[in-house]
């Protein structure tokens, strides 16, 4: 019994790390632009599908998993540079543009990759680590590691790196930042690209563990957003923990309700946070930045 419980906790933490990574993308974009990227879930699926196609073309797994997010990020940078920068100042229109983007991406995913769910076959398939009787897949370990690396990187980025400080400055007081010679659109673009990079990376990490279909993005996005808002949208790095908490709750709930209702749990958490404490539970009481 205890072992099942621990196994459940672990698988919850693994899934939760994915939600967390996607959630970080939401927070970073929200921090810089005040908007929510509704296409974030689609970016995750697109990242995974690109990687699947790359490995299908006989490229090595690791290469595919790294190249796919980068390609996608470059695409987003172009998109931002050409179109989104025009509405970067107006959160509402930026949100509508990302809603539109999610519709288009979903159609493209369906057109190019079909209706059936697909997975990424990784070289670690079936390889597990046995720690005191607990089974932990290498692919699962990679997911957790990915989330932790993202956490540490972000912590460093926002507190130490000049660009991170500048991004924070733009969010806090846009006009003073402009008067200090910072171009807000640049940082908004960087945030957008970075958010999609994390989303695509999360997609690549989850694809070996669970199959994705063209419309998986909606639910993945919602859960990512739930993680982000649970942690507080103003603290991007903490979304990782928000996600892990959410994943664990989700997998424990299966003990009490039929597994089909599992997805409802994250959504209910989302609604509770939105209505009770939209500034998040892990944000330490600080007023939101944007």
């Amino acid at each position, binding site marked *: 019994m205890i072992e099942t419980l621990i196994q459940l906790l672990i698988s919850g933490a693994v899934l939760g790390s994915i939600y967390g990574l996607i959630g970080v993308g939401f927070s970073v974009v929200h921090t810089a632009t005040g908007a929510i990227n509704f296409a974030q879930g689609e970016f995750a699926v697109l990242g995974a599908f690109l990687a699947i196609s790359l490995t299908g073309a006989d490229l090595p797994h690791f290469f595919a998993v790294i190249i796919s997010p980068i390609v996608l990020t470059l695409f987003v940078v172009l998109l931002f540079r050409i179109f989104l920068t025009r509405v970067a100042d107006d959160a509402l229109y930026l949100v509508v543009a990302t809603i539109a983007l999610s519709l288009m991406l979903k159609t493209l995913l369906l057109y190019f990759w079909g209706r059936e769910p697909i997975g990424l076959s990784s070289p670690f398939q079936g390889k597990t680590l046995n720690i005191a009787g607990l089974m932990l897949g290498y692919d699962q370990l990679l997911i957790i590691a990915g989330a932790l690396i993202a956490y540490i990187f972000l912590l460093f980025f926002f507190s130490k790196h*000049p660009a991170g*400080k*500048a991004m*924070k*400055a733009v969010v*806090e*007081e846009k*006009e*003073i*930042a*402009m*008067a*200090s*010679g*910072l*171009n*807000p659109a640049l940082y908004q673009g960087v945030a957008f690209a970075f958010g999609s990079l994390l989303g695509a990376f999360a997609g690549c990490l989850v694809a070996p563990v669970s199959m994705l279909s063209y419309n998986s993005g909606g639910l993945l996005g919602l859960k990512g957003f739930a993680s982000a808002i649970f942690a507080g949208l103003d603290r991007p790095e903490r979304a990782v923990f928000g996600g892990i908490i959410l994943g664990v709750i989700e997998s424990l709930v299966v003990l009490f309700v039929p597994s089909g209702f599992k997805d409802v749990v994250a959504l209910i958490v989302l609604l509770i946070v939105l209505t009770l404490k939209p500034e998040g539970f892990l944000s330490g009481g*600080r007023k939101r*930045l944007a």
Partner: protein
Amino acid sequence: MLEIKGLNAYYGHIKAVKDFSLRVKKGEIIAILGPNGAGKTTLIRSIGGFSPPYTEGEIIFNGKNITRLKPFERLGLGIAVLLEGKRVFPGLSVADNLFIGGYTLRRRKKELKENIESVLELFPVLRERLNKRASVLSGGEQQMLAIARALISSPEILCLDEPSFGLGPKVVEAIFKTLDYLRKERGLSIVLVEQDAALALKFSDYSILMVSGSKKIEGRSKELINDKRLLNIYLGG
């Protein structure tokens, strides 16, 4: 150095500044006076390149037409602007506030360090607070930090909107003395919007009184101090 020619500035249909012209010379302090809603803040925003307002007319700086430049392109040329009310990045530490002020110099590490050092000499109180979050500073310290931040990029002209607002008289006195020092020692030009007319006239070389968007009275500050018309506008409306 800075020249404004025939500036009109609008918020939607409302014309907040009407046909305003101004010349600022090196090392000169110009005070813009006037009651609320006279268009002073709009003028400062226009010099900084912020929108709104939507502007017409020309702003020339050192022979270059900067009318259509974005705010973040103006600092590099030597124009620093401190907007009304917003002074610091509240969530960043004092050191990081200063760092952002010198962001455009971040690749020239030595210069940046020297400049930070020199503003800390101007405002020693900031040195003791370097690692504190800016939001916990007092109002006066925040204003000093704002000025310090604006000075790091060594601008040629500094535009301030109501630097004395909400501060005690002693702090205001200290800030104005520092501004006076900067003008004398470094040849900094200053455009100053100020509610406190007596204070502004005392420290400035030249004053302009604005009423509903237009220049009403202008002249050397020394002469204006005794001008009855000024008193009338302030007291009689």
